[in-house]
């Protein structure tokens, strides 16, 4: 707790970071310009050697912010973990990549591009990672349907039949 408290104070002063606390977990809220220098400071000054995870959350239909990119940094030296959240606006957001700071951000960011359509500037290899390379859309967005088939009953058979996707010849 000691080290996270220290970081929170330092980052609030240096980066005007916001704070999110829940169940004893501390996350800094940073802007897109600050995340790269903040991550560098975490790695080099505070010994956070590992990028534990990087993911995103979609708050659609909210537009500002629509996404939050969520980081977890782990320090083996201090046995501590600290989070960071970066709010992003709009449907085609972009933010700086962390690959130069933590090498394993590479696939995490590819996954975010694949699943959420978040572009990472300066990423060396921003291709889709799990979906096929010619896939359209970003599946983990909240406006992307899960792919249910509507059940037809006798009272609404015709109505659903009109918009039902049938295999084309």
């Amino acid at each position, binding site marked *: 707790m000691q080290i996270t408290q220290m970081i929170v104070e330092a980052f609030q002063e240096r980066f005007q970071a916001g704070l999110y606390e*829940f169940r004893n977990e501390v996350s800094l809220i940073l802007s897109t310009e600050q995340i790269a220098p903040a991550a560098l400071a975490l790695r080099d000054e505070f010994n956070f050697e590992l990028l534990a995870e990087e993911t995103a959350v*979609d708050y659609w239909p909210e537009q500002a912010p629509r996404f939050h990119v969520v980081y977890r940094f782990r320090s083996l030296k201090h046995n501590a973990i600290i989070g960071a959240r970066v709010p992003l606006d709009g449907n085609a957001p972009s933010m700086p990549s962390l690959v130069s700071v*933590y*090498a*394993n951000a590479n696939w995490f960011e590819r996954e975010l591009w694949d699943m959420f359509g978040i572009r990472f500037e300066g990423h060396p290899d921003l291709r889709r990672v799990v979906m096929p390379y010619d896939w359209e859309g970003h599946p983990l967005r909240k406006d992307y349907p899960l792919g249910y088939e509507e059940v037809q009953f006798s009272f609404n058979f015709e109505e659903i039949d009109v918009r039902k996707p049938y295999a084309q010849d």
Partner: protein
Amino acid sequence: MMSDETEFREIEFNLAPDSLDELKHLVSQRAVDGDTVLLNMGPQHPSTHGVLRLLLELDGEQVINCIPDVGFLHTGIEKNMEAKTYEKAIVMTDRLDYLNNLGNNLAYCMAIEKLCDLDVPPRAQALRVILAELQRISSHLVWLGTHALDMAAMSVFLYCFRERESILDIFEMCSGQRMMTTYIRPGGLWRDTPVEFEDAVRNFLKIFPSRIDEYERLLTKNPLFLERTRKIGMLPPDVALQYGVTGPALRASGVNHDLRKVQPYSGYEQYDFEVPTHTDCDTYARYLVRIEELHQSLHIVEQALNKLPLGPVRSNNRKYVPPPRSEIGVSMEALIHHFKLWTEGFTPPVGSVYSAVESPRGELGVYLESDGSPKPYRVHWRTPSFTNMQILPYLAKSHLVADLVVLIGTIDVVLGDVDR
């Protein structure tokens, strides 16, 4: 008929130049000039431990570049979990890392428990530890068997699967399933273990140490095995940390980091065990670390079994945990709770948590976000295989193709865990 054929040919023709263009920045200039060969390994290949495709740039038999292509086993588990209630989504977790089913259940349930501030009774904690360690042993056995099989040591594979089967029998005894257990639930376990459980585990504890010696007799000092593993796939600690490698692979690079030790969960702090590390950083060191982990896991299981407390195996918090079957017949309130929990589900407070456990492969983390509805708003699996797989291009550089097979084995990837 004719049009179909031409269309097919066109697709095939278009794929190659497109994908080469897209991958140009990943291969050396020599591949573009045609000096080196680009070769596909997988996705249907017996040594890639699942559906892993590797694009190799080869100079003779030497690997110049290795580009892993994953996603062939992507099943959209994260998206599917968002459409199910918290409790019903547990069945999806079994299907992630199919060698560590109970570990996945545990990671997910721990995230829910953190989110809801739910208590877990001591007996359930101890049983969770026993099951997680048995699962670790069974996962390491599959790793050991297939790793040795990749180096043409067929018999080790057969022996390992024999012992693994007795662990899976124990899981079947508890949960009714060998692999897709869904046994660990928020607030505890699905139900108490059957009476035969303790004898079965004790029996396994009795026979297994001699079996480990048997594997070691076959491999540890085997000159062929040493030749294939020593100084192969060197992973210095600073590179391992830079790439976020966790688990036995990190510990074999001399970094003593085990979540069971540094951030104990489920009462791991009560048990006396050591975290094996090694400083050789090569494939052989990773082998030794995992073999030692088998011993340590057995040690933990033995201690947990010896002081297994009696009592309930599931929390009594009716807001989140359904009442036992016996109560439903006699209590109206229990019936209402049961009905509400299985139709609507429970509603955790708004917020997000991250909870991590030490899986056989490294840090298995779950990021869980709730918007106050009965379904998780976002579940992200930070799977160890996904992160550890990124080290493969580094390890493979300037090794032979035959060694590449060993390297896939040594980082112990499970493709279900990579692709989710």
